[in-house]
């Protein structure tokens, strides 16, 4: 999956880390990064696929992208962390409904972004693993020569490292939604939050 050049880069990076921490490089397998990169490459290849271009293909292309994203994003974990202390008070049905609404919102946001922006390249900067948690720092170079610093947080579920938060330039998606959700619940109610999430999915 990983082109040789990136592999070398990764190995060099791990070597630096190993020197600093005095740990053998083998302790840093690079599995989270490999898996994330696999999914990202897949999305990018769908976007650049000539067979997927044209107005007639918009729906099909979006479905393909979302399928790839679903395999890598842990929507339930994102929903749970975003609702934070209000999560425990929800019934299983409410949780299920909330996950589905939140997922719908995030999927749309993600798809709009990747379809609307042109990426020149992605540079995988740094990977840190701590038990079943890992963070991967990435730099996205846009066509307009802007650099966007992104950090993925992943946790291990079975054999898969699943994304549960994304930070762009220090702004965490989960934290941002958490603050919004909390204020809405505290100032009005959980029902109001659901109402607004539903309205979002109709509006977009």
């Amino acid at each position: 999956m990983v082109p040789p050049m990136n592999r070398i880069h990764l190995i060099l990076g791990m070597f630096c880390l190993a020197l600093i921490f005095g740990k053998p490089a083998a302790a840093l397998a690079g599995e989270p990064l490999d898996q994330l990169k696999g999914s990202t490459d897949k999305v990018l290849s769908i976007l650049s696929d000539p067979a997927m271009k044209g107005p007639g293909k918009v729906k099909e292309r979006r479905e393909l992208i979302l399928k790839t994203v679903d395999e890598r994003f842990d929507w339930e974990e994102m929903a749970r962390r975003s609702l934070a202390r209000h999560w425990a008070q929800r019934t299983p049905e409410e949780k299920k409904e909330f996950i589905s609404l939140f997922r719908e919102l995030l999927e749309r946001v993600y798809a709009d972004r990747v379809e609307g922006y042109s990426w020149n390249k992605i540079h995988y900067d740094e990977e840190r693993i701590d038990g079943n948690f890992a963070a991967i720092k990435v730099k996205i170079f846009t066509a307009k020569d802007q650099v966007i610093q992104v950090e993925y947080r992943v946790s291990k579920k079975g054999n898969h490292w699943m994304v549960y938060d994304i930070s762009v330039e220090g702004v965490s998606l989960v934290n941002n939604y958490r603050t919004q959700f909390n204020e809405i619940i505290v100032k009005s109610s959980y029902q109001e939050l659901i109402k607004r999430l539903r309205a979002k999915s109709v509006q977009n």
Partner: protein
Amino acid sequence: MKILLRLLLLSTLCLTVFPSPSPADHGAIHPFGASAHYMVLDPPVLAAQSSKPFWGEEEETELEEWADTIRDPLEPINRIFSHVNDKLYFWALKPVASGYKAVVPEDLRVGVKNFFSNLATPVRLVNCLLQANFKAAGNETLRFFLNSTLGLAGFLDPAKKELGIEKKDEDFGQTLGFWGMGPAFYIEWPLLGASSLRDTFGYAGDILLDPKTYLVQSVPLNLSIRIYDQVNEISFRIGEYEDFKKSVLDPYIAKREAYHQNRKHKIKN
């Protein structure tokens, strides 16, 4: 007194819903991304970054932890100004910037952007020095001399294009933060957009360091130049604010928290 008046006028008429360090310049994937400016990352710098504790102060575990939020005692007033800024964007800024974008070719707009950015070098340079970041200060100096000469008064950016020397986005608000000053509380200024008490002081400091303040003494002309700079900037970002609004439930809270977290990130970097 005169300078105070000028500061006030300049700041209120710097026509933008979001000042440049705001989180409104979105990135890919995420509703709250921002553009970044980087120094050349040489191996020692990378290594130094690696040695920092990875998760910073807040260790991410199964336990729910709350990111610190910014205090907002002025929320009712801030919300009103947020509404005003929203309307200002859709009724004034966006139509003007769209028209400008349709008429002026992209290369020229990029040149204008580079020119204003090069002119503002003293702001970044002094703040690099104030944060004892001598490498970035050196880069800023080098960039200024290269781009002012070979780059035709700053319209081109050969320092980045040919030598890969990136600019370092520093301002006085970040310097205050670097030395330990907190944001105090959130302020949404009419016309200027998201800020904090600390960053408002910072903004005043930046105006004092900005050559435009001294080169163009006529207040109406100075304001016109600043407005033009902002319209030019927004011509690259039409659609971003719209996307942002689509992706959030409460744009006011989302913007406030994104501003706070993005500023913390910038102060750390």
